[in-house]
């Protein structure tokens, strides 16, 4: 058995080292080298022999203890709990912990009233004491969790803008979902805690009246009264603590929600912009600015000067329609009028043979393409009936040699005779 005072002295002496160990390694293990390094760090002018001695002192007094089957060390759990209480480095407990304790309290309450009914005073006292202990424990848990949440909030708020939003607020969301919400449900005015506490209160009150009526055990009465007050107080503390915690977490949760909302919205709107074009998407929503300068003023002095200068040089120019003389005279192509050609062709009578032959005989001055134009007009004329020969012929037309299946006229009865000749 190590004397408590000795341990406290060592703790006092090496508090800075222990604090560092606790903060650096939390609940995980570390090597003896780490401890020595920390001692050296905190006491730079100590010799290595002294450092070795002090490390052994920590080990001997079981402030740091070796892990089972390992050369690694850890802080004695009792010391770690004490340190975490002192440093307020508390971790959020579970709502379940408190629920279990409250249920236990209910069970004990039943046992207490049973003992009271049976007149077993020593049992009554025993249960009263256990219940008292439980109540203290619950109150401690509430306070513990409250400071844990405070830590969480501070961590989340402290500037780690390089940390992802989700990770930064993960602890907050977890705390909210796993502790605050179930607990708030529990301590709600119609929740299970309330029912449980009022039942316990009723049981204790019954015992107190019984003691009063029987006039025995004034000491027990006082103890029960105290317990009853403590339980009521605990309920109040719990409600207040949870309320405070929720108030601290709520703004962060809102912030996170707002942020994710904005991000999602930005992605959605940008997606729409990509699909529909910037102007179309943004025109209806963009904020408008008052811009009197642009609405009412022409501009700055230099703009005015430039504008006036261009006004001074302004000349009104009339639009001039073209004169009649300017229109170039129409030059008809060299082709004779088709009606004339047709007439002369119809009246050519027996003389006409092949169409092209007729044309080249009658209009020797025409170019080959002009001649072909007339030829084409004649053969497509609905009033003249023409037939096409089956054999290909080549002939000289103006200066051009062409090959074709020539059309010949077959109109009148005379032409039938002609056809027979052919």
């Amino acid at each position, binding site marked *: 058995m190590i004397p408590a005072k000795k341990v406290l002295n060592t703790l006092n002496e090496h508090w800075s080292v222990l604090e560092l160990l606790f903060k650096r390694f939390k609940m995980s293990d570390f090597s003896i080298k780490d401890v020595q390094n920390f001692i050296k760090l905190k006491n730079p002018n100590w010799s290595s022999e002294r450092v070795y001695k002090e490390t052994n002192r920590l080990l001997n007094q079981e402030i740091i203890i070796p892990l089972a089957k390992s050369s690694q060390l850890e802080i004695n759990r009792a010391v770690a709990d004490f340190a975490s209480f002192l440093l307020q480095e508390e971790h959020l407990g579970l709502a379940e912990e408190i629920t279990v304790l409250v249920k236990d309290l209910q069970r004990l309450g039943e046992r207490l009233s049973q003992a009271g009914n049976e007149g077993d005073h020593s049992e009554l006292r025993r249960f009263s004491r256990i219940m008292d202990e439980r109540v203290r424990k619950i109150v401690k848990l509430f306070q513990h969790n409250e400071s844990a949440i405070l830590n969480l909030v501070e961590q989340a708020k402290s500037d780690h*803008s*390089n*940390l*992802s*939003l*989700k990770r*930064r607020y993960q602890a907050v969301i977890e705390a909210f979902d796993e502790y605050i919400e179930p607990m708030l449900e529990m301590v709600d005015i119609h929740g299970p805690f309330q029912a449980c506490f009022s039942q316990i209160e009723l049981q204790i009150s019954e015992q107190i009246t019984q003691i009063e009526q029987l006039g025995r055990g004034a000491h027990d009465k006082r103890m029960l009264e105290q317990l009853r007050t403590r339980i009521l107080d605990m309920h109040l503390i719990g409600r207040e603590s949870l309320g405070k915690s929720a108030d601290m977490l709520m703004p962060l949760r809102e*912030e996170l929600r*707002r*942020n994710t*909302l*904005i*991000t999602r*919205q*930005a*992605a*959605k*709107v*940008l997606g*729409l*912009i*990509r*699909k*529909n*074009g*910037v*102007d179309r*998407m*943004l*025109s*209806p*929503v*963009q*904020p*408008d*600015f*008052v*811009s*009197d*300068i*642009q*609405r009412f003023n022409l501009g700055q002095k230099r703009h005015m000067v430039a504008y006036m200068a261009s006004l001074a040089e302004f000349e009104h120019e009339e639009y001039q329609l073209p004169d009649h003389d300017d229109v170039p005279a129409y030059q008809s192509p060299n082709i004779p009028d088709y009606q004339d050609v047709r007439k002369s062709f119809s009246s050519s009578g027996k003389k006409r043979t092949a169409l092209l032959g007729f044309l080249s005989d009658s209009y020797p001055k025409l170019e080959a393409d002009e001649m072909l134009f007339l030829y084409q007009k004649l053969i497509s004329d609905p009033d003249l009936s023409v037939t096409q020969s089956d054999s290909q012929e080549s002939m000289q037309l103006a200066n051009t040699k062409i090959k074709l299946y020539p059309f010949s006229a077959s109109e009148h009865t005379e032409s039938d005779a002609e056809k027979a000749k052919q």
Partner: protein
Amino acid sequence: MTQINLNDLSQLQAINKKLAGGYHISEQDTTLWQELDQHIEAYQALFAALGHDLQHDARGFYYLASDESTPNMGKISRAIALTVFILIEYYANQGKDPLRALFDEQIDLELMQTLIQLNKHLFDQLEIFSGSDLRKDVFLRMLRLGLCKETERGFILLAPVYRYIDALMEVNEDNFEALEEEV
């Protein structure tokens, strides 16, 4: 009937000049902001009589609200809106808290170039082709409108940018579905 003592409104000229140019007076313009803060009712009445709507936003800025815009201002506003939305997306993609980063981080030329590279086809539609275009056409204009302030290394956005965040959230509420149906 509000009694306005013009002698009390010592900054009237400066305030009018700024506001009429579309400028947002936020807390960094200490003198003007304090003046408006103290005599907000008088200023509001005065501007209302002149046909303006002086708005006080609880997030810390004053501006003249307007529901119509010259085509040129409309285009500028559109470019600013696009830039702000893209910045939000950019910060969120970086895993940062977008709202915090939007008002805390400096926007330097390098970031502007990155933004342009990432969203070239969007900025192309507004005829902004490079980081320096973005600086000139958007950030210098935002400076003139009181939406940001210039620092040694770049620009820092100011509270009036919330008007654009409001606009962003507004898309959700009514225009969104209507626009989609229209498409």
